[in-house]
């Protein structure tokens, strides 16, 4: 009983989740074991297929760099990110200034 | 900074002693007259600033023993917190000496009076501890900031840390 968390709307139980997880992973392993068994290590079967070209030695030549990840996401929200980049200007004056602006807004709101 | 003229240096020599004596006076009489460990320590540290200005860095830096003053700092702090910890028999920072006779244990008459030097218990002790600490700390700040000016000329002391 002491594994359940009641949130007032429902509950969460770690152990039933973990049991469910093991059952599911058992199923997955079972399905996997039904695959082909004529795979052999060390033959050409486990070589990387690289569009019929020679596979590059250094990994950095075939990896997508981190700065390209989520390129579409950033491109779609370009206006938003430009605003954010402008806000993070790196000026010490601005860092203090935003604090003063928030203080001014809050002072006006609280005093009203 | 270059050293100033011989007149300034002579005047500084004389005034240095007055400043030192005044600082120590302020520290020791902290519980009787305005002042105390911080103020007295600051006055003595101002003396070092004077010496630095009058004699210039070339003469001041060899004269100043930085290890001695970092010991001053550590000893002052340990004496301070130690005095607090000794009171732990009752509570942390308990004034276990006041009014008990003996060291700093005299009582003073109530109301305006000229004061008794041997009174106030741990207050006087802590005043001295803090005074020693402040002398050490502030003069170390001055010394290291002054030496920091020369950091431009020195090279080969860069640390690359984790960057390859």
């Amino acid at each position, binding site marked *: 009983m002491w594994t359940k968390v009641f949130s007032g709307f429902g509950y969460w139980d770690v152990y039933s989740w973990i049991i469910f997880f093991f059952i599911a992973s058992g199923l997955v392993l079972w399905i996997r074991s039904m695959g082909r068994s004529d795979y052999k290590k060390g033959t050409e079967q486990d070589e990387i297929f690289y569009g019929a070209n020679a596979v590059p030695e250094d990994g950095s030549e075939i990896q997508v760099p981190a700065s390209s990840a989520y390129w579409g996401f950033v491109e779609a929200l370009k206006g938003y990110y430009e605003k954010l980049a402008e806000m993070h200007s790196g000026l010490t004056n601005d860092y203090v200034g935003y604090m003063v602006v928030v203080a001014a807004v809050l002072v006006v709101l609280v005093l009203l | 900074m270059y050293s100033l003229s011989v007149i300034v240096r002579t005047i500084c020599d004389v005034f240095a002693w007055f400043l030192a004596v005044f600082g120590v006076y302020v520290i020791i009489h902290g519980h009787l007259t*305005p002042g105390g460990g911080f*103020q007295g320590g600051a006055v003595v*540290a101002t003396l070092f600033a004077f010496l*630095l200005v009058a004699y210039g860095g070339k003469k001041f830096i060899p004269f100043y023993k930085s290890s001695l003053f970092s010991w001053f700092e550590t000893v002052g702090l340990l004496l301070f917190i130690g005095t607090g910890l000794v009171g732990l028999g009752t509570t942390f920072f308990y004034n276990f000496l006041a009014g008990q006779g003996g060291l700093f244990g005299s009582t003073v008459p109530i109301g305006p009076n000229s004061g008794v030097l041997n009174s106030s218990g741990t207050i006087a002790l802590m005043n001295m501890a803090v005074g020693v600490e402040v002398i050490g700390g502030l003069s170390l700040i001055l010394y290291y900031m002054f030496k920091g000016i020369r950091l431009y000329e020195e090279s080969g002391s860069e640390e690359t840390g984790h960057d390859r």
Partner: protein
Amino acid sequence: MNGVFHFFILALITVSAFFAIWFKDLLSSVVSLAVFSLLLSLEFYVLQAPDVAIAEAGIGAGLTTAIYVIALRGCKALKKSGGERR
């Protein structure tokens, strides 16, 4: 009499604080700040706080000024006007 003196000190404090910001020459600013600290310690004395007055005179006017001058010396800007890029 005391009131006039007090008023005078307060006015001088404001003026010296203003000049500490206004001067373009950094050394003048720092000296103005030292004057400001000294006047502030006088004000503390007028307000019957000699303990704080001694501390402010020793720390604010003495040591802080020394540290500022050392920093200016360290930045090799002691004689140069630092505020021309305002």
